[in-house]
């Protein structure tokens, strides 16, 4: 089921929780709705579910305008942030509940619920009450309950936020697997950029109710449209600083980051001060050049995270973990070609040099 969101707005008094959102989600696509706390992710999801009434705009499922259709009739599955399982019912009863509501005969409802439970690997837990389950198991019950009625759209509101790191990775892979298995259009809300990038076909990044960028994860990571998206994606975070462009090239505090000759033709940025960004992995260590001093070094496993100061500006650099670098070590580095991002005064990306 294709979803089209047109000029969707939710206003609380003077405050716009969601502001003129336009989004098109293809059939069977998994879209990650990403943004910081309070940016309007849940509000968007709840408008899609029908639990929250939009102040303006339209929502289309396929070619049908569902804006005024109540949640009961939208044929959606929703997994709540806290799962919202029925605490007094067993796992099986929870999963059967939506079917019985739709007057599916009891035996058939039972069969379907059991099959769905098998898909999410809940066999053997069917007679337990939710409070006797782990967070990950509860979450899978919630997904099974949402999917068993064969909805046209699956909505998930930060379903992994209560899980520990390992379970989180496991269950997000599982969600992806189930989603591909049943081929259902899915919207997945999260404030975890890594989570969003790893399971989404496309990501919609929101900030203060406004859509910033809607793109495939890799494309968005490599080419963020603005400073906000560049900042939000990536861990460790992108290095942001104020630099200067002159006739000779791009400078930071007297360090030449990129000479004019190295810049591609046509990148005719007017001289002046600019906000700039370099991702930590886009530094490369070189044999010669100006020396830097590591102020501290953190081993993260695959990488070494090296902190150093380019005069006043603190920088983070990722190096391969077999490099012999420690606090106080001297090294030389340069920015890989085409990986220095220049932002305009309005925060929009102007160029990568």
């Amino acid at each position, binding site marked *: 089921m294709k979803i089209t969101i047109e000029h969707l707005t939710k206003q609380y008094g003077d405050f716009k929780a969601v502001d003129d959102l336009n989004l098109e989600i293809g059939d069977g696509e998994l879209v990650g709705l990403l943004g910081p706390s309070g940016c309007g992710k849940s509000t968007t999801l709840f408008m899609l*579910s029908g639990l929250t009434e939009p102040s303006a705009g339209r929502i289309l499922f396929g070619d049908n305008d569902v804006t005024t259709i109540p949640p*009961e009739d939208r044929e959606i*599955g929703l997994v*709540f942030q806290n799962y*919202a399982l029925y*605490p007094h019912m067993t796992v099986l009863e929870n999963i059967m509940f939506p079917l019985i*509501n739709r007057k599916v005969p009891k035996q058939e409802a039972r069969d379907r619920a059991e099959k769905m439970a098998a898909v999410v690997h809940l066999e053997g837990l069917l007679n337990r009450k939710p409070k006797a389950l782990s967070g990950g198991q509860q979450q899978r019950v919630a997904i099974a*309950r949402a999917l068993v009625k064969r909805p046209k759209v699956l909505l998930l509101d930060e379903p992994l936020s209560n899980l520990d790191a390992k379970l989180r990775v496991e269950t997000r892979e599982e969600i992806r697997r189930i989603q591909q298995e049943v081929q259902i259009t899915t919207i997945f809300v999260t404030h975890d950029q890594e989570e969003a990038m790893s399971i989404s076909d496309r990501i919609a990044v929101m900030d203060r109710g406004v859509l910033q960028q809607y793109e495939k994860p890799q494309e968005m990571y490599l080419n963020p449209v603005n400073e906000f998206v560049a900042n939000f994606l990536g861990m460790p975070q992108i290095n942001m600083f104020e630099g200067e462009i002159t006739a000779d090239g791009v400078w930071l505090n007297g360090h030449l980051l990129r000479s004019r000759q190295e810049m591609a033709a046509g990148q005719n940025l007017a001289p002046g001060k600019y906000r700039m960004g370099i991702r930590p992995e886009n530094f490369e260590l070189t044999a010669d050049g100006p020396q830097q001093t590591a102020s501290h070094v953190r081993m993260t496993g695959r990488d070494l995270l090296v902190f150093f100061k380019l005069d006043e500006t603190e920088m983070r650099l990722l190096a391969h973990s077999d490099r012999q670098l420690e606090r106080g070590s001297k090294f030389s580095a340069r920015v890989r070609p085409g990986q220095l991002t220049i932002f305009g005064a309005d925060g929009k990306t102007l160029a990568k040099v």
Partner: protein
Amino acid sequence: MQHNQTVARRLRGCKGYLYLAPSLIILLVFTVYPLIKAFAMSFCEDYSIIDGSFKGINLQNYQDLFADEVFLKALSNTTIYVVFVVPLSILLSLVLAVLIHNSLRGKALFQTLYFLPYVTSVIAIGIVWSWIFNSNYGLLNYFLSLFGIPAIPWLNDPHYALAALIIFSIWKSLAFNILIFLSGLASISQEIYQAARIDSTPRLRVFFKITVPQLRPIIVYAVLMGLINAFKVYNEVFSLFQSKAGPANSAITVVYYIYDKFYNSGDYGVASAAAVVLFVIILVLTMVQKSIAKEKEEA
């Protein structure tokens, strides 16, 4: 060091009992002692409250009690009363509580309305209701006449007196029940109801499959309190029938019987025996009800 700590802890324990002492003393003097005394009196034949003399220790009081038609009437009245008042009151207040909870507007008005009977004196309410039940000018008969039902002599006909008492008591008990149900409703997570909407749950099913199970502990509590209070019904009789037990004792209840035997007839032993019988009934019912509730909890 170790020793000092134990002493300090013990002293602190003593201090705790000191704080409790006033209420413990009151409890002992006004509750525990009378309980034991009544129990003892029930086995004393012809007990005199003036000099504490009695003829002998036997079951004479209990024999007299169960031979007394008035007591049997009181017992059956009380049973009928309990059977009607408790379930009807719980059901009605549950439905009303849900309606009040779901209606956003007028919540404050309702809050005052349902709380009113709870804070008003039973006697005053009884007087108002005796007017409502008045066969010639009463509101209830006027209302029934709209449906073509002829005037019913609610308070003057032995056939209707108990019914009037039951209606009055249900109304009166609503306040407390609605209050506790509302607090229970407020504590149910909204998300469960949202989930129920997403799952396309019909309204009645939401009530029976979500609201009622979620309120179960509170319903159990309300039933228990309702049972105990209903078996002890007295004030309602006293106020509705102006200190009588209805025409020809038709609305007499066990507690009214106890009161009457004690203060009017001076049959202290029989009154005590009736009190013990009532105590045992309530005790057994409470235990049965609790074990049922526990069984369901574990299931």
